[in-house]
């Protein structure tokens, strides 16, 4: 697809563009990619949001071992590795790193980088349960963030600026949603690899460029015909699907499976809900990003997400679920024990649980397990 090439070309020069923007006085705001940071606030303050979504590199996980024990989520240890080593240039360019504090794994990233690097960090808490107290706490967190951003950039986040940013981000979400929903059709018109590339790109690309790319992709997909055949349709879910961690996508595709929908806590931008751009805009952001967001596994109770997975499995007419968790993310590990029973009861579908520590040695056993799973459901 032509638009994908455009995105790729844009990302190739993105760091250079960011450097120039920084030299010109723009601020770069990095954030951990769990979907709880309203980018609208960053955009409205005149800064550039960058989701630190890279992962999959075992050397960074090993490097983190000098700063923290191994019993922390793999992606989070990789972020510590990138942050302390400077191996990820995006970490080097940020003026502020915002950490929406979700669980102890994101807290580990914040604490270790705060103590061991000069990166300026701004944490704010994401409650683990939904009620008015929690909503108010989240709203207070993003309000503090707004103030911090205004201080950082010297730009007041006014209602018109915020409204404009909300419209832009809503358009991005709408397009991702429309493209994703096209995969309900059989065969799916876009591969998971391409959809994930678009989603990952949205963390790094200029927002307007990204919207243009998505508009083009959507148009191209509408115009072109569907692929001729398709293997077993798969729902891929789990804790984190990072940029650079493509092995499960690759192995599933190589085994003849077709991932038609992804659901992740981190690395996949939530796109199911849009901000309602009326009334108090800060409350509107909190309503979308917190109250209407389908929460990850570290939320309590867990039933909203598990129901959502069942719904996705039905809506996208999948033949099986692959549950991809990273090592030591205990909330996902625990749910992986009892969700198969719920899935079986509600849909009759099978589930395969796979786990990674970004170690290249995992690929062989993973291939065998995924191939066997795909072969089983194909029959």
């Amino acid at each position, binding site marked *: 697809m032509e638009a994908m090439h455009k995105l790729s070309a844009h990302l190739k020069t993105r760091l250079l563009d960011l450097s120039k923007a920084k030299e010109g006085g723009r601020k770069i705001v990095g954030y951990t990619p769990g979907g709880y940071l309203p980018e609208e606030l960053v955009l409205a303050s005149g800064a550039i949001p960058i989701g630190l979504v890279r992962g999959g590199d075992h050397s960074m996980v090993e490097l983190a071992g*000098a*700063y*923290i*024990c191994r*019993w*922390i989520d793999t992606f989070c240890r990789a972020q510590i590795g990138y942050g302390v080593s400077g191996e990820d240039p995006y970490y080097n360019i940020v003026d502020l790193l915002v950490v929406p*504090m979700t*669980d*102890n*794994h994101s*807290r*580990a990233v*914040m*604490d*270790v980088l*705060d*103590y061991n690097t000069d990166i300026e*960090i*701004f*944490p*704010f*808490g*994401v*409650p*683990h*349960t939904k009620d008015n*107290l*929690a909503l*108010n*706490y989240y709203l*207070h*967190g993003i309000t503090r963030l707004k103030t911090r951003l205004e201080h950082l950039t010297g730009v007041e986040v006014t209602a018109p600026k915020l409204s404009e940013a909300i419209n832009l981000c809503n358009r991005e979400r709408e397009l991702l949603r429309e493209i994703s929903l096209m995969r309900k059709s059989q065969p799916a018109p876009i591969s998971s690899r391409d959809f994930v590339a678009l989603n990952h790109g949205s963390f790094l690309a200029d927002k307007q460029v990204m919207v243009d790319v998505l508009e083009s992709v959507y148009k191209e997909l509408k115009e072109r015909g569907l692929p001729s055949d398709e293997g077993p349709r798969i729902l891929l879910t789990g804790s984190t699907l990072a940029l650079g961690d493509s092995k499960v996508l690759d192995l599933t595709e190589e085994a003849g499976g077709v991932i038609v929908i992804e659901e992740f806590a981190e690395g996949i931008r939530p796109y199911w809900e849009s901000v309602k751009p009326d009334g108090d805009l800060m409350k509107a952001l909190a309503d979308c990003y917190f109250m209407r967001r389908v929460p990850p*596994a*570290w939320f*309590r*109770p*867990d039933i909203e997400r598990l129901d959502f997975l069942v719904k996705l499995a039905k809506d996208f007419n999948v033949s099986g679920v692959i549950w991809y968790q990273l*090592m*030591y993310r*205990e*909330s996902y*590990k*625990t*749910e992986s*024990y*009892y969700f198969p*029973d*719920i899935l079986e009861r509600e849909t009759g579908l099978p589930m395969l649980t796979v786990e990674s520590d970004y170690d290249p040695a995992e690929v062989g056993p993973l291939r065998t397990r995924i191939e066997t799973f795909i072969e089983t459901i194909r029959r």
Partner: protein
Amino acid sequence: MAEYYDELLKLCGFADDEIEKERPRIEKTFRKLELGPEDMKTAEKWVRQNHDVELMGVRKLLWIWLKELIDLVLAKDEGKRLLYYGFPTIAGPASVVAAASEDVYCVCPDAVLCYTMGQIFNKLTPILEAGEENGLPAGHGLCSLLQIRVGGMVKGIIPVPDMVITSSYNCDMGSKADELLHQRYGHPAVYVDGSMDSRWGEFPNYLPQRADYLGGQLEKVFDKAKEILGVEVTAEARSEGATRNRELTGALRQLLELMKEADPQPISIVDVEVARRLTSGSAGRRIATDGPNIIAALNQEIKDRMDRGIGVVEKGAPRVIICMAHFSDPSTTHMMEDCGLSIPATLHALFAARIFKTTPFISGEILAKEQLERGPFHGSCGEITRAAEAVQEFNADGVIWNYSFNCRPIALTSHLLKQFVEKETGIPVLSLEFDWYDSRSYSAAALRTKVETFAEMLRARKASAKV
């Protein structure tokens, strides 16, 4: 007529007439726990090896834990309603509910199993294995305390509760394990949330909204207790709950003050921790009525030993602060003292014994503010700063940061604490990977070499400082 368990119970502070009176309950409990004559022999040996049974205070501590075990196992059979809570705990809400109703037994069942099936019977492994086989498998860094909870419930040792208070202000795992159990047994849960979103260096300050949020969440427990258990939490119950907590905390504080002053160390830190855990392991009525007196009696025995210069380690031995003692396997903690180290306190005992100016009654707001001031629920910086303060307060020569590998809030400080405390105090820190609840992999034998080396280094350091 004497039974196979009488000797053990006497060793654990039971009086003869009490054994006679309690015999039906004891036997029913032991049947459920599958404890027979061979287990009593093992337990007698284990208790004599690991607990200072010369001291009546220690024996009564074991007594009170055994009584809690019996109450827990038989609670449903005896018509009690059960409220469970989990670790890491903010003990206040359970104390208030316990004070509000004699019919509701409020307890952390996994802690009771550790302090009895582990500390007394050395028979925790089958329970851990049941937890591993029923949703919390080995090899994934999952909390072994929660494996004990799951294993205990799956094996039918501990009853299904009427309500569980499950928290997410510090730990992510407890509520997930409770959800796993909820899937199986369907009991209702109250989620008490909080957020540990303070920056490094922010401690002891905190945003008032943090206290408001945590306080509001804690208050939910009282509404739910009424809704689910039918327990009306009155002002009197809030006051009574505060009194209970204050009396226990006061007795514990006195114990730690004695440990601070003493040289040689008069009793093992193992038994100090058996006492300390009364402040959080159960909110049973007996803990409130007898607990402070038992600790006070122990304190008197300790004073006596101090007067006579009796100690469990050599006078002048290097002093170390550790994170926590093992919940279930005392031999693992004893190993450190066997290496010639004096352990006057654990950091978490100091947290538990922190005295606040006024707590006339318990409310969510008061508890939240106290907890944020304590340190560990404030964030890593709070925990670590308090560790550095403890080093100064106890004039420690070193710290063994025996973090439990499967406890994320602590494990994430594995390196940070060493970095910070060594920098701020100049005192060496051994960061020791540990498991506070399960010693199958992290046994005394497996850890001894590291601790011995550290102890040797501390002795050399102390000696050179004198030159």
